């Protein structure tokens, strides 16, 4: 934020609000630029498809037409919804478990040393191996699919939140003790705000990683979802359909990012004067 270079001590009380609107304007100018570059990419794609002149390189219009058709028949939303539900389940599960274990490891030396080898093992195990093992041991079920995805994500959450727990400010915890903060107050007003950047980092990278793994899980052992559809159309070499499903889900993830994650992040970090 080099634009808002007011000297801090001279800033009157309503600074936060003023900075807020300045930030809004800035975002406004960034959006058209993003749209321009998106349009450029589409144009490039259209040109490439035209030059290739091959069924395996569809034009953007072909893909869009497929998506409309698929949406009209209801197929698209069915599979999107199922995949999204799996993403949500695996995401929630891995964030909960990963946060718990990460905090434990960050605060407790014994737990850290005891669990560290497991963490290293789990994070280095290829996603495919975990998926296959889960399907074999648990069966070709929904539970196995979600367990497999969560197991792939948990170590990342653990590592991020462990750093967060290590970075907790002991000075603030002492202050909370001296002033006899209740447990709820301690968690809500002292601990969680300090973990917020770590939680945000873990969820961001989490969503992206999880939906990619969910697709693999669906491809291997489920009979619905975006991954299953891609598998199906792969057998027909139908790139239009493959791209249609992939882009539809990317659009869903973008919507989540812009409509949910970013506004939430902005809300909880409005106390920050400048981005870290």
């Amino acid at each position, binding site marked *: 934020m080099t634009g808002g270079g007011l000297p*801090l*001590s001279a*800033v*009157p*009380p309503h*600074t*936060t609000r003023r900075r807020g609107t300045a930030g809004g304007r800035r975002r406004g100018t960034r959006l058209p630029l993003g749209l321009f570059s998106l349009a450029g990419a589409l144009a490039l794609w259209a040109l490439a498809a035209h030059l290739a002149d091959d069924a395996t390189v569809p034009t953007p219009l072909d893909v869009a037409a497929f998506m409309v058709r698929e949406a009209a028949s209801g197929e698209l939303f069915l599979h999107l919804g199922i995949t999204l539900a799996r993403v949500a389940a695996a995401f929630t599960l891995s964030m909960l478990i990963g946060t718990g274990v990460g905090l434990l490891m960050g605060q407790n030396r014994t737990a850290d040393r005891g669990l560290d080898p497991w963490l290293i093992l789990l994070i280095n195990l290829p996603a495919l191996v975990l998926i296959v093992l889960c399907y074999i041991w648990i069966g070709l079920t929904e539970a196995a699919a979600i367990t497999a995805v969560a197991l792939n994500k948990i170590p990342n959450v653990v590592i991020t939140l462990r750093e967060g727990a290590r970075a907790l400010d002991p*000075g*603030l915890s*002492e*202050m909370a*003790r*001296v*002033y*006899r*903060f209740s447990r709820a*107050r301690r968690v809500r*007003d*002292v601990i969680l*705000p300090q973990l917020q950047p770590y939680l945000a980092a873990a969820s961001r990278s989490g969503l992206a990683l999880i939906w990619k793994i969910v697709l693999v899980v669906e491809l291997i052992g489920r009979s619905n979802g975006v991954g299953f559809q891609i598998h199906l159309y792969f057998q027909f070499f139908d790139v239009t359909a493959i791209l249609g499903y992939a882009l539809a889900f990317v659009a869903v993830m973008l919507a989540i990012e812009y409509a949910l994650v970013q506004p939430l992040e902005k809300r*909880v970090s409005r*106390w*920050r*004067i400048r981005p870290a």
Partner: protein
Amino acid sequence: MLRDLAFSLEPGSFTCLIGPSGSGKTTTLRILLGLDTDFVGSVALPGHDARIAAVFQEPRLLPWRTVEQNVRLALPDGVTPDLDGLFDALGLSDVRDNFPGELSLGLARRVALARAFAIDPDVLLLDEPFVSLDEATAQRLRGLLETLWLKRGVTVLMVTHNLREAARLADRLVLMAGQPAHIVGEEEIDLARGARDRDAVEARLNRIMQRHPETVRI
């Protein structure tokens, strides 16, 4: 680090704990606050649920809460202080909706003082609350602390290595020194509060210095 350390505080009195760096002053405060439990001995607090407030060396405010929220969060159930008056007395009325990151160190220190006074404590412990402030600001804050103390009758223990500050504010000085640290002397400052001008304080300090040349230097 500490040995044979024993002292008691008269209710409503203002005591300063003086000593060179590393003589265990902060550790003593941490023991009193229950933050350091690695010691042998006992701490007797006035009454079962005596309210203790602390002002640390750093303000220790929650950066994600506004000035007012920081003060309100520390309030025990049922305590409803006159926050308007308190913020007014400390010159914080204009910044109560600001976040701590937007405040100067001097203002942040005042918020820490406001938080300590807001809970209407029985005992107030301060750990060098005015270091690294410019002298004019420090002087103003000392005046505010004295006013609030006089008004509320709280028992104050302040750690400092600034002798002039101690002689200006305290009823009694407790001098610590040595390795392991112990109490090497106690001095009453029996000057009337109205009569603590520069010369009177200097003369008093000189007498103390002569009695404890190894501990007290100005």
